[in-house]
C-alpha cells in the first residue's frame, strides 16, 4: 500500500526500554493495537516528555489532520478507519463481530484494566523506591538530554503521586537513615522507632500484594482459552491487559514483589501476554517504523542575516532610483577623497616611543603637525624616531 506523507499514521509514545517499545502501559497498548490492525502502515515518534507531543499528552495519534489523544479514543479512531472511504485499510476493528452486550462488557473491563492494572504497573515503576532508583529513574534519564535529565524524572514521578496516593499505593521512602554516630546506643526507644518503620513498610507490601492478588484472580477467571471473554481472536481487552502484564513481567525490577507473584501463580496470564508479544512485537512480527525527531542545530538560534534571498525583477523606475542612489554614494565618496587629499597633504604619522621614569616603554601614536614650528611634545617623555 502506498501512502503519502499526510496520510501516514503517526503515533507519539513514551520511548521504550527493557525490550519493549514503550515504558508506559497505555502507549504500549496503542502500539500493540496498531500492530494487530494496520501493521507496517504506521510510524512511531518517541517523545521523551509529554511536552513534545502535539496534544501535550501521550499516547497521541496523528492521521490525516486529525489528532487523537489517549488510548480509548485512539482505538475508536483506528477501529473506524476501515469504514471511511479512500483510506485503504481493512479490518481495523479488532472487536468485529461482537454483540452489543459483549462490547459493553468490554468497555467496563477496559476501564477496570486501565485503572487497576495501571495502578499496579505505576506502583512497581514509580512508587517502590528501589525500583525507581534502580530501574525507572535511569531508564527515563537516559531518554533525556544532559540538562533535562537532572530535573525532569522527578517531575514525571510527581505526576503519578496523586493517583497512587488515592489508590493507597504510594509507598514510604526507603531511604536508609544513616546515624551520625557510628556507635549509637541501642535504646529500646530507638529500636522501636526503627522497627515501626520496617513494619509499616512490610505491611504496605502485603497490602499491595493483596490488591494485586484480587485483580489477577479476576483476570484469570475471565481469561477463557485462548483469549479474554471467550473470544477466539484477540480483542481490545486482550491488548490492554497484555500490555500491562508485559510491563509487570518483563522489566528487570530490583524489587520484584508483584512480578514474582505474577510469575509464580498466574501462568495463564503470562502465557497469554507472551502470545500477544510474539504476534506483535517479537522477532517475526512486522517491523515498526520509527520517525526520528528533527535535529535542531544551535545555528537556528542565531538571528538570520536580513538578506532577502528572493530576487524579483526590478521595474524601470526602481532601476533609475538605484542608479541615482549609487551615483550619490559615488559623489559622496569622491568628495571625501578629494577633501582628505587636500587637507591631509601636510599630515604625517609617526610612531613615538615614550620611556617614563619607571623604565616602562609605551608605544604611542602621535600625530604631529610638521607644518607647525612649535611641535607638541609629550609631557615628560623623550621622543625617538
Amino acid at each position: 500500500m502506498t501512502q503519502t506523507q499526510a496520510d501516514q499514521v503517526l503515533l507519539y509514545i513514551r520511548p521504550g526500554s527493557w525490550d519493549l517499545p514503550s515504558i508506559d502501559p497505555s502507549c504500549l497498548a496503542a502500539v500493540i493495537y496498531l500492530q494487530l490492525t494496520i501493521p507496517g502502515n504506521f510510524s512511531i515518534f518517541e517523545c521523551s516528555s509529554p511536552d513534545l507531543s502535539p496534544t501535550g499528552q501521550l499516547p497521541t495519534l496523528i492521521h490525516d489532520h486529525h489528532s487523537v489523544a489517549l488510548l480509548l479514543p485512539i482505538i475508536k479512531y483506528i477501529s473506524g478507519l476501515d469504514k471511511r472511504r479512500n483510506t485503504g485499510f481493512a479490518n481495523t476493528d479488532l472487536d468485529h463481530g461482537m454483540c452489543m452486550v459483549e462490547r459493553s462488557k468490554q468497555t467496563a473491563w477496559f476501564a477496570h484494566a486501565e485503572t487497576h492494572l495501571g495502578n499496579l504497573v505505576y506502583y512497581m515503576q514509580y512508587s517502590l523506591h528501589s525500583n525507581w532508583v534502580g530501574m525507572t529513574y535511569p531508564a527515563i534519564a537516559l531518554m533525556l538530554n544532559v540538562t533535562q535529565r537532572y530535573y525532569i524524572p522527578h517531575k514525571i514521578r510527581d505526576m503519578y503521586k496523586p493517583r497512587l496516593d488515592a489508590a493507597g499505593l504510594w509507598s514510604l521512602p526507603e531511604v536508609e537513615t544513616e546515624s551520625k554516630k557510628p556507635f549509637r546506643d541501642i535504646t529500646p526507644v530507638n529500636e522501636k522507632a526503627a522497627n515501626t518503620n520496617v513494619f509499616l513498610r512490610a505491611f504496605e507490601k502485603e497490602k499491595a500484594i493483596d490488591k494485586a492478588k484480587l485483580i489477577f484472580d479476576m483476570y484469570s477467571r475471565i481469561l477463557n482459552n485462548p483469549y479474554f471473554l471467550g473470544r477466539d481472536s484477540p480483542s481490545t481487552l486482550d491488548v490492554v491487559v497484555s500490555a500491562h502484564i508485559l510491563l509487570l513481567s518483563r522489566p528487570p525490577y530490583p524489587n520484584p514483589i508483584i512480578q514474582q507473584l505474577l510469575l509464580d501463580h498466574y501462568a495463564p496470564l503470562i502465557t497469554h501476554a507472551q502470545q500477544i508479544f510474539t504476534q506483535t512485537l517479537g522477532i517475526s512480527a512486522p517491523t515498526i517504523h520509527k520517525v526520528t525527531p528533527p535535529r535542531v542545530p544551535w545555528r537556528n538560534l542565531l538571528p538570520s542575516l536580513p538578506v532577502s534571498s528572493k530576487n524579483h525583477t526590478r521595474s524601470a523606475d526602481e532601476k533609475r532610483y538605484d542608479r541615482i542612489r549609487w551615483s550619490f554614494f559615488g559623489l559622496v565618496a569622491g568628495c571625501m577623497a578629494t577633501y582628505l587629499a587636500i587637507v591631509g597633504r601636510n599630515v604625517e604619522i609617526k610612531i613615538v616611543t615614550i620611556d617614563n621614569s619607571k623604565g616602562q616603554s609605551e608605544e604611542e601614536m602621535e600625530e604631529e603637525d610638521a607644518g607647525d614650528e612649535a611641535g607638541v611634545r609629550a609631557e615628560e617623555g623623550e621622543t625617538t624616531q
Partner: protein
Amino acid sequence: MLTLPPSIAAFFALFPLRTNPPIYPPSKKPITAPTLWIIPTNPSHSLSNDVECLKWQAYLALRGLTNIHIRTDVHPEGAIDGRLPNLHVPPSAEKKSDDDGQLLAAHLIPAWVDTQTTTVDPDLEGYIDAAARDESRAWVALLEGTVHAALLFSQPSPSYLERFLSISISSPLSFSWSSDAPTSNAASNTTPSPSLQTLITPPPPPATGVTSLFPASGVRISPTAILTQYRDAIAALSERLGTDQWFLGSSGPTALDALAFAYIHTLIESQSDTLRVEVCRRVNLVGWEKRVRETVDSAFRREAR
C-alpha cells in the same frame, strides 16, 4: 507585695473585665430513628446533590430500610474524617435512654445494615453468579473512573475571587476512592477526594509542562478524550441494562445498582447539557432511574427542624 502605680491602675480601669454568662448548647434532641447526615439537597425531594451521599442513600434504601431521617445542616468539616455522609444510629433499646447513639462513617454503614436486615450472601453479594460479581467490579471502575472524570470536568471551577472569599464548602463531588472495598485502615479514609489527576489514565501532565522550569500547576487534559470515553461509558451502561430490572440481571438490587443510580441521577440533574443529553436519550436508563428514584425517595424523611 508590689502594688500597681496609681497612674497605670487608672489606665487599666478604662478597660474593665466583663464576664458574660456562659452559652449552653441547645438542648439535644433525642435521636429516635437512624439519621443520615448528607450534603444539602434540593428542597423538592430528599436526594442529595452529592454523588457520594446519594450513593449511600440509595444503598440504604435499596437494602430495604425505610423511615430513615436525613439531616442537611452539618458541614462536611463536622463529619468523621471531614467527609459526609455519616449515619447517626440511635442507641439500642437495652441501653440507657440518655445515650447519644453512635455516629458511623460511610464505610461502616454496610456492617450496620447487615445487623438490621437480612444479610446478603458475602460470597456472591447478591449477584447471580461469580462472573457477575467480577463484572460488577469492572462497572464500578467505569463509573468511578470515566464517568466521574466527566462529571468533575463539567463542573465549572470556582473563580479566583470565589476561592479566596468562600470559607471552603468542600467540593460537592467529594467522595472516597475505595467505595467497593471498604477498608478499616485509617490511612485509606484520609485519601483526598479524587481529582482529574487521579482519574485519567495515564496521569495528565501539569499545565505548565514537564520540561519547563516553572513549578508545576494545573493539569493538561483533553476534553475530547474525556467526552469520548464518557459517551462510550454511557452507551455501554445502557446496553448492559437492556430491559432488565436490575443491573447484570440480578434478581434484587445490589451495591452496583446503588452506585449506578447515584451517577445516573446526578447526570440527569447535571447543569452540563453535553452530559445530560447522553443519558436522557437512552430511554431505559431514564425509566430505570425514575423507578429507583421513587423507591429511594420514599425511604427518607426530612427531619423536622
